[in-house]
């Protein structure tokens, strides 16, 4: 009997391997994950349990499950199975819109201003836009999110004041439309002015435009309803896609997802909500701990940001050394050049500022725990966070007091409820969509890796790979980055161009960067890491006296690269590049 099972297992394994190497469809879509620790919902654990999924739906779960004969068996002994994670606010897979030619760099001054009548589109008010029109199913960040255990993303479109409708998207499929689980899950809006000096340019105008636009949409809906009942004697309603897209919002069928990353924008969003009365979700929340009273008394649904400010441990290290007389040298080679600087004690003002900064970082790490203590439920959203930091950030929040159970709920049951998808997502139950992840241990343990992810019952398998440390010797990956690259950073209204050179320094890879506008001067890049096809590094940049840290995350594809750079609070910008020469 046992041999027989093993036999089938091997056969299945072969088929799976074939399916992955070639582009073959799997034999069937029936899987049994056996002998696992299964967490059907937060706070519940089944040991030595089995879950069977068939054709995209969970068929059975429990300790007494009989394995169907046609099932491909995955022995998950000592592994953990969770419901697939749901990201309540994501920008993954969205093609960033190209700026209008006239709005760019040097070309701009020559372009005469556009004085034609203002339209909603020019104002950045496009509620009629749906995510499917902007979604690129082959985008690498979708795969990166899936690898973390996410199976459903609530993706918001890219745009200005009202970019459009969000959609809950399943992370499986090659066509945008087939990935959509629920279109129009929310109307996404932000305090972001229009391009090309068009109204609304600022926060105050965005707020004013919201009130104008919404009230006129209400009137238009009233007009249409009356006309439908009896058109006699009434002027015909005019057609406007943007206005009509607002009707489900006015009817409170679709909530408004308001991006509010700071306390002031939360107050402002609630001011607009108070005037107009729509259902609101506060999203990308980072300072919710300052707003608990209002959130609680109004039962405002929340999407907390998975982004956190940089940890301040480096400073601590420096301080510790200082306390010990500044004589001890770190083992880390890279620390050495900085040692001299670090031996200087901070002046009292700088020390105080750093203490304040540290406290501020801690408040943000504690946000989720603070809200839980206040009895406020929330979901998590990844928008603005680097994929590579999401798990670490979750662990920082847990370290700051968030329970693992609550963390899990905020990644599964809470977002399912928020998106009104809790009948098909969020927990592992018979009949629900087969979205699940299998990890090598409890998910939030730092060493745990995600081994399998099922989306709509389709299996994705991930190899165990030792994690490369910054500057580590993933030699073949490093080699793929070496040489001279030309890059372009797509900053609104201008294009930043220059060169990057990567070379080997012993076993470590190092890099430097130059900017076309500042001539031959180069700056060093810090913490250059190449892992697989992903290269990350950061650099310090002096902007009119303000020191900023730019964080790059790039994908290498032969002689091309693309990715993004995070410029502090200014946002994330698209980077593209081409290799112009390889080292000898």
């Amino acid at each position, binding site marked *: 009997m046992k041999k027989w099972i093993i036999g089938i297992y091997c056969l299945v394994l072969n088929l799976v391997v074939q399916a992955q190497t070639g582009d073959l469809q799997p034999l069937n879509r029936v899987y049994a994950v056996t002998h696992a620790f299964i967490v059907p919902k937060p*706070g519940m654990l089944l040991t030595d349990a089995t879950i069977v999924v068939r054709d995209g739906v969970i068929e059975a779960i429990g300790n007494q499950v009989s394995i169907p004969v046609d099932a491909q068996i995955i022995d998950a002994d000592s592994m953990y199975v969770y419901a697939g994670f749901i990201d309540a606010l994501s920008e993954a897979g969205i093609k960033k819109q190209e700026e209008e030619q006239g709005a760019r760099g040097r070309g*701009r*001054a020559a372009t*005469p*201003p556009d*004085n034609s009548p203002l339209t909603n589109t020019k104002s950045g008010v496009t509620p009629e836009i749906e995510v499917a029109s902007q979604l690129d199913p082959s985008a690498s960040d979708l795969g990166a999110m899936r690898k973390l255990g996410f199976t459903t993303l609530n993706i918001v479109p890219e745009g200005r004041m009202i970019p459009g409708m969000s959609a809950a998207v399943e992370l499986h499929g090659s066509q945008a439309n087939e990935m959509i689980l629920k279109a129009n899950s929310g109307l996404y809006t932000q305090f972001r002015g*229009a391009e090309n*000096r*068009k*109204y609304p*340019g*600022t*926060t*105050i*105008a965005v*707020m*004013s435009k919201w009130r*104008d636009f919404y009230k*006129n949409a209400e*009137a238009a809906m*009233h007009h249409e309803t*009356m006309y439908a009942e009896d058109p006699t004697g*009434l*002027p015909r309603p005019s057609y406007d896609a943007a206005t009509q897209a607002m009707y489900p919002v006015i009817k*409170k069928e679709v*909530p408004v997802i308001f991006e509010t990353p700071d*306390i*002031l924008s939360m*107050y402002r969003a609630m001011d607009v909500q*108070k005037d107009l009365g729509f*259902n609101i*979700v506060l999203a990308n929340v980072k300072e919710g701990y300052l707003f608990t*009273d209002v959130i609680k*008394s*109004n*039962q405002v*649904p929340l999407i907390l940001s998975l982004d956190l*400010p*940089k940890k301040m441990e480096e400073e601590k290290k420096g301080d510790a050394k200082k306390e010990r007389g500044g004589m001890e040298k770190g083992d880390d080679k890279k620390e050495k050049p900085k040692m001299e600087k670090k031996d200087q004690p901070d002046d009292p003002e700088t020390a*105080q*500022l750093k203490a*304040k*900064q540290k406290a*501020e970082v801690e408040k943000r790490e504690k946000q989720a725990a603070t809200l839980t203590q206040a*009895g406020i*439920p929330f979901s998590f959203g990844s928008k603005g966070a680097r994929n590579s930091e999401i798990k670490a950030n979750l662990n920082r929040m847990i370290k700051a007091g968030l329970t693992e*159970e*609550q963390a899990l*709920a905020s990644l599964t*049951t*809470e977002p399912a*409820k928020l998106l009104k998808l809790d009948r098909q997502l969020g927990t592992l139950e018979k009949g629900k969509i087969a979205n699940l992840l299998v990890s090598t241990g409890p998910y939030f343990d730092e060493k745990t890796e995600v081994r399998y992810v099922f989306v709509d019952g389709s299996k994705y398998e991930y190899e165990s790979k030792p994690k490369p440390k910054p500057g580590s010797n993933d030699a073949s990956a490093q080699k793929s980055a070496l040489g001279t690259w030309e890059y372009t950073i797509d900053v609104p*209204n201008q294009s930043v161009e220059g060169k990057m050179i990567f070379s080997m320094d012993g076993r470590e890879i190092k890099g430097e960067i130059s900017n076309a506008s500042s001539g031959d001067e180069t700056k060093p890049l810090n913490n250059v890491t190449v892992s697989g096809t992903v290269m990350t590094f950061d650099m310090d940049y002096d902007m*009119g*006296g*303000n*020191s*900023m840290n730019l964080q790059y995350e790039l994908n290498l594809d032969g002689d091309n690269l693309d990715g993004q750079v995070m410029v*502090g*609070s200014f946002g994330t910008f698209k980077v593209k590049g081409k290799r112009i020469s390889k080292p000898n």
Partner: protein
Amino acid sequence: MKQLFSLIFILSASITLSWSQPSKGSLLIKNGTVLTVTKGTLTNSDVLIVDGIIKKIGKNISAPKGVEVIDATGLYVMPGIIDAHSHIGIDVVNEATNPVTADVWVGDALDPMDVSIYRALAGGTTTSHAMHGSANVIGGQCETIKHRFGSTNPNDLRMDGAPRTIKFALGENPMRVHGEGNGIIPRTRMGVEEVIRRAFSEAQAYQAKWDAYNKDKMKNPRALAPEYSRRLETLADILSGKVMIHCHSYRADEILMLMNVCKDFGVKKICFQHVNEGFKVAPELANFGAYASVFADWWAYKFEVYYSTAYNAAILTRNGVVTSINSDSPDLIRHLYHEAAKTQHYGGLSDDEALALITINPAKQLGVEDRIGSLEEGKEGDVAIFRNHPLSVYAVPVRTIIDGVVYFDIDKDPSDIRVSIDPDNLPTFQQYTEEDRCMDGVFEYLFENR
């Protein structure tokens, strides 16, 4: 955990907001020299504030139980200073996308964490008029704020019940931004006038449409509402006297122009800001009943303001124009008492006249003279306490009080008062520019077109 499950998001719950009220305090200020501004100077006198309101001013008042006493022996007690023109406490100044943006309101963009608010407190300033900038002929609506620093709630700044005001701007700023910048009207001062007249005429037509609809609605349930426009609605509110104009202006000719436009449209409430050539048309301003809010001695920073005088405030005052001295700057707002004192050197104003320029007169210009601007029983407990007379060069503000609550105390002045900082971007130093903040946020537009 189970509790969490039972806490289901109720998306359809009707949301009602209840912002908490800013706190009010009780204080007895003992034995100071009380500069009431409107009712003379009282030596060795006390001011009792109960629950934010001045209850009693006089000698030998005893403190009710539990009320804190401030010993003001040898100190000067004056009304909290009021600045009729500033841009602190807001994080948007200009919506420079159209020559007319009456719909926007800087009260939507209050920033209670702006450290300039505390710096203003440290100069005895308790109230300011947070204004829209001067990029547009008709800019946005403004907000009168009290400097209740230390909160993250923008609503704590609002001076509830203060009348609505709106920013207008004449001359070079709107001409530069829209005429030169966008190639649209106004490119000249004639164009500025045209923009205002057209806006007012459109507002009249808008109001007529709505009046007709509201009448029709009574008998016709199928009446259709006209298009709603916050911009035109606000302009109509100016015409009906619900919103007061505060107009950025320099030259005598444009000041006369706007008074003529206002006469044509029946607008009576107007306060001219800057008014650097106001001294040339002081009788006309007085005759119209217009107010003037000026700099003490700041001009020649651009061509249209080449010609002015430090006697401006005194000449306007002597001609019977309600005049104030403003800052338009997070720096000048810290020492408006010095700015007021300059009118004693240039123009020989009396102490009360000079102090009125930064207290009761700006209060009148903001329509809050029945609440603040002088020390009188029944008014709000906004007080600045000085070591040495506030009009002396040796004056040092020692306490600043709003609604009976101490917000600045020189003896308890922390080295870092900021409510919050951005953990990702540490500030290193503040770049100081000589330009006034009136044009904040529009420079990038201008540079792009050079």
